[in-house]
C-alpha cells in the first residue's frame, strides 16, 4: 500500500486557489465572475477530494472543471452581442502604421528576437504585463483569443461556440496576435532594453 499522504487534501485544494483565480480573472476580466467560477470548480473538486491521488491529479482535474465553467460563461456572454460586429473591434487598418507603402515592416516596427520563453516565464513581472496587454484587447477579440489560446479550443470550436464564421474567427485571432505582440514588445521587451541572450 502506498502512503496515505498521497491522497489530495483540502490544503492542496486551497493552495490551488490563487492559480485558479489568476487563470479565471485573466479570461473573464471581472473579479466577481472569476470568483464565482473558481468557487464552483472548488466545490466540485471538494466533493470528490478523496478520489484524487495527490496534488497533480487534483489540479489537472480542477483546472479542467474551471475551463468548462469559463467556456460556459464566455458563451453566455457572447449571446448578448452581435457576432458580426466583433471583427470590427480591431479594424483591418489598425496595423497599417506598422508597415510601409509596400507592406514591408517600417524600420521602427520590425519585430525583434525575444529569446527563450522559459527565461521570461520565471519573471513574475512578465505575467502582470501579459495581463495588462490582454486587458487592453477589445472584449470580443479577447474572448476569441482566450478560448483559442488559454482554453485550447480549435478555431472551428471557438467559431461554433460564439456563432461566428471560421474565417471571421481566423481574422480576429490574427489581429489579436498582432496587437498582443506590439504590446509585449513595447511594454515588456523594449522596457528591458537588450537584456536578452
Amino acid at each position, binding site marked *: 500500500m502506498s502512503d496515505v499522504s498521497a491522497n489530495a487534501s483540502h490544503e492542496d485544494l486551497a493552495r*490551488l486557489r*490563487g*492559480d485558479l483565480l*489568476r*487563470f479565471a480573472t*485573466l479570461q473573464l476580466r471581472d473579479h466577481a465572475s472569476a470568483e464565482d467560477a473558481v468557487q464552483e470548480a472548488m466545490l466540485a473538486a471538494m466533493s470528490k477530494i478523496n478520489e484524487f491521488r495527490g*496534488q*497533480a491529479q487534483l*489540479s*489537472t482535474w*480542477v*483546472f479542467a472543471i474551471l*475551463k468548462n465553467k469559463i467556456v460556459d460563461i464566455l458563451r453566455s456572454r457572447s449571446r448578448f452581442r452581435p457576432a458580426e460586429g466583433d471583427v470590427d473591434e480591431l479594424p483591418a487598418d489598425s*496595423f497599417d502604421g506598422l*508597415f510601409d507603402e*509596400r*507592406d*514591408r*515592416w517600417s524600420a521602427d516596427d*520590425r*519585430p*525583434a*528576437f*525575444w529569446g527563450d*520563453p522559459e527565461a*521570461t*516565464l520565471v519573471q*513574475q*513581472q*512578465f*505575467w*502582470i504585463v*501579459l495581463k495588462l496587454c490582454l486587458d487592453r484587447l477589445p472584449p470580443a477579440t479577447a474572448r476569441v483569443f482566450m478560448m*483559442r*489560446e*488559454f*482554453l*485550447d479550443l480549435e*478555431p472551428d470550436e471557438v467559431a461554433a461556440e460564439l456563432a461566428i464564421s471560421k474565417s471571421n*474567427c*481566423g481574422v480576429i*485571432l*490574427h489581429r489579436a*496576435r*498582432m496587437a*498582443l*505582440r506590439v504590446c*509585449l*514588445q513595447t511594454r515588456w521587451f523594449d522596457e528591458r532594453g537588450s537584456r536578452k541572450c
Partner: protein
Amino acid sequence: MLTCKETTELVSKEVDDSLTLKERLDMGLHIMMCSACRNYRSNIRFLRYVCKDAATPGRHIDETKG
C-alpha cells in the same frame, strides 16, 4: 513574392488552420530572407507558449504577492 503584411497573415493561418503547399513555400522563402518576419513568427510562437503555460496548473505562485 509575399509582402511582410501577407506573411503575418500566413503565420496565423499556419497556427490555426494549415497552409497550402504554395503558401508554405512562399512563406518559407520570405522568412528565409526577412529577419523581421522570422522574428514575427517566433514571437507568435512565444506568445502561444506563454499562454499555454499560463493555462497549465500549478506552475505559478499567486501573483497578488508580487
